[in-house]
C-alpha cells in the first residue's frame, strides 16, 4: 500500500532517500505530495514563486535516472530555495520590488550543484528584502507567518529572518529541506524560531556566485532541515570550491554524514561567559545550562571561556554590513533589469526607482552604509569596525586553542508576534546578538532545536566551530539533537498532522 501524503511530507531527507532507494515511492509521488503541501501552506506566505511544473519535470527525470541505475546523492529530494539564489528562467526577487520582472539567464553555483545532485526545485521562498531583517516582515511580498502559534493564542508569529520562508517551509512540512543564506544569523535564528536545524558553514565553504549580495564579506549559503543528519547531507551537496567566487576556498569537502554518530568523549566545549546577557529570559538560560549538562553527559569536557569583545560585535556588524550593502545595492538603478520609475532626467529616474523600489529597512541600511563610508567618517566608523572585527576573530582564535566547539543560545528570545519590534530597529537588530560574532569571524555555526519555551515555542542552541571544521560542529550538534529529543510539531502542518 502506498504511504499517505502526510507520511511522505513528514519524511526527512535521509528517510526519503531510503524510501526512494527501496522503491516504496517514486520521486514523482514524493514531489506531488510536497507540491500539495506547498499549496496547502499558502496562508503562511512562505513562497514567493512556486514551480510545480518544473518540480514534476525534475522528479520525472530523477525517476528515469534511478531506473537507469544512476543515483545521485540527492536523487529525487524536493527542496525549497530562498529567493536570493538566482535560478535560470525562474523569477528571482530578493524579496524586493526593485527586481520587478527580473528573470535570471543563469543559475547560482549552489543551486546548480543541488540540481546536479538530483534534487528537485519546489519553488522560491520568501525572505526579508535583500536578506535584511530578522523577522521576514520586510519582504515586499508580505510577511511570512510562522507555522507555530502559542497554544491558546491566535496571534501570528514571525518565523525569524531573513531565511524565514525557508525555515517556515521546512517546519510546516512543505519541503524536507531548504537552502538559505546567513549574513549575521539569517539561517540560524529562523531555524531556532521554527524548531528546525539551520547551519551557516564557514565563510568560503559554499559559493556566493549567483546569490544576490547583501554583505559580501559575511554572506554564506547554508542548509535548513529538520535533522542534523539532513543538514550534513545537504551541506555536502552545496559545498565546494568555485573558481567563479574569489573568496571560495579550495579545500576538500569531507563526508559530513560520516562525521555523525558517537558521543562527545574527548571533545572540549567552550561556554563563553560574555554570552550571559542581562535580560535574557531565564528559560533560555536554563536551556543553555541543560545543553551543557547533555554534552557533559555525553562525555564532553566543558570549559568556561572568554570572548572579551562579544558586546562590540553587533555594532561593528551594523557598520560593516550596511557599508557593503550600500555599495552592493548600487547596481539596482533601473538601467539593465528590474524596476524603472521614470523621472524628469536621469538622476530623478535613479532616485524614483530606488526610492520606490527599496523598502524602509533597506533604505535605512543603505543610508547608514553610505554615511559611514562617506568622506570624513570612514576611519571613525568603517575602519574602526574592521579593527574590532580583527579583535573578535582573535577572541575566537584564542578560544579554539582551548576548545573544539562553543555552545551558546541561538537567539535571545523566542519568536515574537508579527508587527512587534518593527518601530525599533535596534531592538530588532538585537535578535542577532548571539549569531553575529561567528559571522564576523567567518566561522561555521549551527542551530539545533533543543526545547520549548514556557509558552510552547521552540528554542535553539548554537554550536560554533573552527574554520572549515563543520564536521565537529555537526557531530556535536548530533549529540545535542539526540539528547534533546525535540519532536514537537508546529500547530500548522501542511497536509494534516
Amino acid at each position, binding site marked *: 500500500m502506498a504511504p499517505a501524503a502526510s507520511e511522505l511530507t513528514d519524511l526527512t531527507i535521509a528517510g526519503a532517500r531510503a524510501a526512494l532507494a527501496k522503491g516504496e515511492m517514486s520521486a514523482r509521488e514524493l514531489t506531488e505530495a510536497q507540491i500539495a503541501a506547498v499549496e496547502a501552506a499558502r496562508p503562511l506566505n512562505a513562497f514567493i514563486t512556486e514551480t510545480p511544473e518544473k518540480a514534476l519535470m525534475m522528479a520525472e527525470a530523477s525517476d528515469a535516472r534511478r531506473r537507469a541505475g544512476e543515483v545521485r546523492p540527492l536523487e529525487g529530494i524536493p527542496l525549497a530555495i530562498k529567493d536570493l539564489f538566482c535560478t535560470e528562467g525562474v523569477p528571482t526577487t530578493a524579496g524586493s520590488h526593485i527586481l520587478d520582472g527580473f528573470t535570471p539567464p543563469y543559475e547560482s553555483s549552489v543551486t546548480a550543484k543541488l540540481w546536479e545532485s538530483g534534487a528537485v526545485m519546489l519553488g522560491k521562498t520568501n525572505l526579508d528584502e535583500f536578506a535584511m531583517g530578522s523577522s521576514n516582515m520586510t519582504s515586499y511580498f508580505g510577511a511570512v507567518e510562522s507555522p507555530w502559534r502559542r497554544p491558546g493564542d491566535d496571534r501570528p508569529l514571525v518565523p525569524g529572518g531573513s531565511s524565514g520562508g525557508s525555515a517556515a517551509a521546512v517546519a510546516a512540512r512543505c519541503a524536507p529541506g531548504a537552502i538559505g543564506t546567513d549574513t549575521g544569523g539569517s539561517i540560524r535564528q529562523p531555524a531556532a524560531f521554527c524548531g528546525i536545524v539551520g547551519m551557516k558553514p564557514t565563510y568560503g565553504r559554499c559559493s556566493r556566485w549567483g546569490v544576490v549580495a547583501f554583505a559580501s564579506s559575511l554572506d554564506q549559503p547554508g542548509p535548513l532541515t529538520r535533522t542534523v543528519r539532513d543538514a550534513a547531507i545537504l551541506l555536502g551537496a552545496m559545498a565546494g570550491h568555485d573558481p567563479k567566487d574569489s573568496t571560495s576556498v579550495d579545500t576538500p569537502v569531507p563526508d559530513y554524514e560520516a562525521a555523525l554518530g558517537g558521543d562527545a568523549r574527548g571533545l572540549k566545549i567552550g561556554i563563553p561567559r560574555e554570552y550571559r546577557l542581562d535580560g535574557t529570559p531565564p528559560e533560555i538560560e536554563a536551556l543553555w545550562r541543560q545543553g551543557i549538562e547533555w554534552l557533559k553527559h555525553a562525555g564532553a569536557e566543558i570549559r568556561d571561556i572568554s570572548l572579551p569583545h562579544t558586546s562590540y560585535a553587533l555594532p561593528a556588524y551594523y557598520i560593516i554590513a550596511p557599508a557593503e550593502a550600500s555599495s552592493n545595492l548600487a547596481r539596482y*538603478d533601473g538601467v539593465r533589469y528590474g524596476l524603472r520609475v521614470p523621472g524628469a532626467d536621469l538622476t530623478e529616474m535613479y532616485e524614483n526607482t530606488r526610492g520606490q523600489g527599496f523598502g524602509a529597512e533597506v533604505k535605512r541600511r543603505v543610508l547608514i552604509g553610505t554615511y559611514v563610508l562617506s568622506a570624513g567618517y570612514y576611519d571613525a566608523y568603517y575602519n574602526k569596525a574592521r579593527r574590532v572585527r580583527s579583535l573578535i576573530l582573535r577572541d575566537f582564535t584564542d578560544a579554539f586553542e582551548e576548545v573544539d566547539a562553543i555552545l551558546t543560545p541561538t537567539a535571545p528570545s523566542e519568536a515574537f508576534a508579527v508587527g512587534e519590534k518593527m518601530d525599533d530597529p535596534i531592538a530588532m537588530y538585537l535578535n542577532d546578538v548571539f549569531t553575529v560574532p561567528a559571522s564576523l569571524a567567518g566561522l561555521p555555526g549551527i542551530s539545533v532545536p533543543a526545547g520549548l519555551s514556557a509558552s510552547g515555542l521552540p528554542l535553539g542552541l548554537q554550536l560554533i566551530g573552527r574554520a572549515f571544521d563543520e564536521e565537529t560542529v555537526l557531530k556535536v550538534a548530533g549529540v545535542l539533537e539526540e539528547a534533546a529529543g525535540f519532536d514537537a510539531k508546529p500547530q500548522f502542518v501542511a497536509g494534516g498532522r
Partner: protein
Amino acid sequence: MADTNGGLIQGKTGPWEMVIGLEVHAQVIGESKLFSGAATAFGAAPNSQVSLVDAAMPGMLPVLNGHSVAQAVKTGLALNAKINLTSVFERKNYFYPDLPQGYQISQYLQPIVGEGTIELDLPDGSTKEVGIERLHMEQDAGKSLHDQHPTMTYIDLNRSGITLMEIVSKPDMGSAEEAAAYIAKLRSILRYLGTCDGNMEEGSLRCDVNLSMRRPGAALGTRTETKNVNSIRFVKLAIEYEARRQVQVLEDGGKVVQETRLFDADKGVTRAMRSKEEAHDYRYFPDPDLLPLVLDPDWVEDIRRGLPELPDARKARLVDDFALSPYDAGVLVAERETADFYEAVAKGRDAKLAANWLTGEVFGALNRSGMALAEAPVDAKKLGGLIDLIADGTISGRIAKEVFEAMWESGKPAAAIVADQGLEQISDTGAIEAIVAQVIADSPGQAEQFKSGNEKILGWFVGQVMKASQGKANPGLVNRILRDKLS
C-alpha cells in the same frame, strides 16, 4: 588674451608659469577583461562582448585576470617604479549609466605600483625627468552614446570591465610641449613593452590634464582637470587654451574654480562639465569580493629580467654605436619598428646617411601614402641596397632619389632599377671630358666670363654638364674637369 611662450605666459600684470600633471588611462593589451572572461577587441556589435559580470547582474562576482597584473608590473618596472608586493582593490562608488555596478573596481590607498620616473626627450635635444606618482589597475566603464537619439542616451557595455592602467604623473611639466613629450614618451614605452597599443583614436590611451597657473616660483595655484583629451595635438591645444583662460580669470581679479572640464575639440576650448551639480564623495572601501593582491618577489624579478630594451637604453646605444645626435636617436627609437628598421639599414653602412634616408625619404613616402612602416614597399634590406649603390659610387645622390621613387612604385631592388634604366653614374674621365669639351664649345661667352673672374658661372656649367649626361655624371669629377678645361 595673453601669449604663451615655452610655458611662461606674459599677462597684463606680468609673467605666469604653467604647472601641469597628467593622468593617463592606458588600456592593457590582453584577450579578456580585468574581472571577467569577455573579449576586449575593438569595434564589436553593442553588448556582444559583455559577460553577466560586466553587466553587474545580481550575484555576479569578479575574478582577477593574472595577465593584467603582469602587464601592470611590467609597466611599473619600465617606469623605474616601486612595485608594491601587496595592493588592494577598492570600490569607487558613483552612479552613472555606463557604470553597471554602481562602483568602479580600482585601487586607491594601496596601488600596485608606486613612485617612478620618466625621461622626456625635448625638441631642442635636451632631456627632462618627470616623476610618476603611481600606477594602478582599474576597470573601464562602458560607453555612453549621447547623440543617437533626441531624448535618450544609449549604453554599450563592451568596454565595461576592460583593464586600464591609470598612470599619474607628478605636476612636473611646465609647458604644452613638455606634456606632449611626456605622452609621446609614455606611449613609446608602453608600445615597446607590449602592455598598451597606445592607439589614441580608439581610446586605448586617454589623457586627463591637471593644470594650474602661478607666478614664477610661487606656491601652487588652484587646478582644473580637463578630461579625456584624446590626441597629443588636443592635449597641447587644451593646455594652451586652459592656461590662457586661467590667466585671464586671475588677472581679472577672479579665482580659478577647482573643477572638472571637458575639451571641445571642434571649438578648441575647454568648458566646465554640466553634470557636476554635487561634490563627489566616492566612498572608497576595499572590495569585499576580492582579497588583497599579494605578489611573489621572485615572480616580479622574473618579469624584470624579461623586460625588453627600452627607448632610453636603445637611444643611448644608437648614440654610442652609430655616433648619432641624441635628437636623431630619440626620433628613431620612438617606435620599436622604426629603430629595428634603422639598425638593419645602418649596420655596416654610413649611419648618418641611413638616418637621413629613413627620416627623410621613407617617412615622407609613408606620410604621403598613409602606410605603416611594416607595409612599406621599400624594406630595410632594399633601402640598404640603395645606400650601398650611393656608397660605392654607382649612382649619385640625386639619381638615388629617382631610384627610390621607382623602388617605392615597383617594389624592385635598387640595383635592378639602376641596371634596367642605365642609371649608373658616369665616372669615366674620358667620357666626362668629352661632354665638358662640348659644353664649353657651345658656350664661349660663359667661358669668357669665368676666365675674367666670375667664379659663380662654374655652377651653371656643372648644371649644363649634368643635364647633358642625364644626371649620371659624377659631380665631383665634373667639377674638377670643368676647372681644368676652363682655366
